[in-house]
């Protein structure tokens, strides 16, 4: 004689998955004993009442979250961890109830937290941008700038054209050493007229440091830096879109940069802003032989740390290889001021 079907179903429905079979088994065992002792009718009634009792207990247990799978001996639960900190789930439940009970306080607290998070994120971002800027390029933390510093005043000394040649030959801890300077040139075309631009005169090595391919054409090459090589120019994406209307046939066109003619050889992709927010790039063709060191034009020197070399190791290496007079020394640091 089996227990009433609905009683079995109730226990099976409410018991946790690993307790269904034995839960119904207990019900059946008790029902058999009752029927034998008190008859079918009374047995069925008592078993039904017990099913309701067990079902209520299981339901209550489930509501209180105690129907989770059993844990192995020695296993630590989240509740144990909370208890270790002097907390319990009750603290969270009470907190939640307070928030529901006092909606005004909830709104104020939420706004305060939102403001605090926004303020914290803003300060963090400001600090990072001001003191630890990073470049949006692969391995950007390996890109460094070499800079002369006047020992007496502590100010940066941009006259590094001659030093650049020495550093390029002597340094083993910094590779892809390149130089650039920023100039302001007028871009003159037949269609667009004259437009002042911020241009970077760069060595091909300096332009290659970010490892970014052009959107159209090619980048500057080492041959472009040779004396007598044809003048070429590389355009930024916004300049190409704005001044040339995004003309896909812009490559090979001749433009006037002040007094010289230059051929457009490429267009860089959107967002490319190396070494800063420049609009055009032309080859750097400064010959140190034409200048005395103390009156040479200012250039910035950038490079990429050799693999597995730290900034500190590169600085130590440079001190060993540096040939300097007594007034000028140099330092190595991360380059900043780059726009994404």
């Amino acid at each position: 004689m089996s227990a009433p079907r609905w009683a079995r179903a109730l226990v099976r429905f409410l018991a946790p998955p690993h307790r269904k079979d034995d839960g119904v088994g207990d019900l059946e065992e008790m029902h058999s004993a009752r029927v034998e002792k008190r008859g079918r009718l009374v047995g069925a009634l008592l078993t039904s009442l017990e099913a309701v009792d067990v079902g209520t207990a299981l339901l209550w247990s489930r509501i209180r979250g105690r129907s989770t799978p059993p844990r192995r001996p020695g296993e630590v639960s989240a509740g144990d961890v909370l208890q270790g900190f002097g907390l319990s789930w009750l603290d969270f439940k009470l907190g939640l109830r307070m928030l529901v009970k006092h909606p005004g306080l909830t709104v104020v607290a939420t706004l305060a937290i939102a403001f605090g998070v926004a303020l914290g994120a803003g300060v963090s971002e400001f600090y990072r941008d001001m003191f630890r800027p990073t470049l949006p390029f692969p391995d950007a933390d390996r890109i460094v700038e070499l800079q002369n510093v006047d020992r007496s005043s502590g100010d940066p000394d941009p006259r590094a054209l001659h030093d650049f040649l020495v550093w390029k030959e002597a340094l083993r801890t910094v590779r892809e050493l390149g130089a650039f300077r920023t100039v302001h040139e007028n871009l003159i075309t037949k269609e667009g007229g004259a437009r002042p631009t911020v241009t970077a005169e760069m060595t091909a090595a300096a332009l290659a440091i970010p490892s970014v391919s052009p959107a159209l054409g090619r980048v500057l090459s080492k041959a472009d830096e040779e004396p007598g090589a044809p003048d070429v120019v590389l355009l930024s994406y916004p300049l190409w879109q704005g001044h040339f209307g995004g003309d896909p046939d812009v490559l090979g066109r001749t433009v006037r940069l002040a007094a010289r003619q230059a051929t457009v050889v490429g267009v860089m992709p959107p967002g490319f802003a190396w070494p800063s927010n420049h609009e055009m790039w032309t080859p750097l063709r400064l010959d140190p032989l034409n200048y005395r060191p103390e009156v040479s034009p200012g250039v910035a020197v950038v490079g990429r740390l050799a693999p597995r070399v730290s900034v500190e190791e590169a600085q130590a290496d440079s001190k060993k290889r540096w040939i300097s007079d007594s007034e000028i020394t140099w330092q190595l640091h991360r380059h900043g001021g780059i726009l994404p």
Partner: protein
Amino acid sequence: LRDPEIAEFELLVVLAALRLGGQEAYTVAIAADIEERTGRSVRRANVFTTLQRLENKGLISTRLGEARPERGGRPRRLVTVERSGVEAARATAAAIRSMARGLDDLFGEAG
């Protein structure tokens, strides 16, 4: 972390499981044993949920036995008291004995 604490009814269930042993301790038998020894009426639902709670605390472990005809071909869930369960029961029982000591006129000879 603190040692798990067990309540009075949990202590009775653990003690009953220890008395019955790993081959005979299951819900129905534990309820019957407590009824027999304490003389109080025990709801099987309470034993069922208490075993579940003790298992969640890691004080006991359970395993399914063989299917039995009187249970409609369903197995018993046999209870084994873990070492931590024995320690918890011992600590609770000792606390009760300790508190009852000196109250012999009310409880008889305790401990």
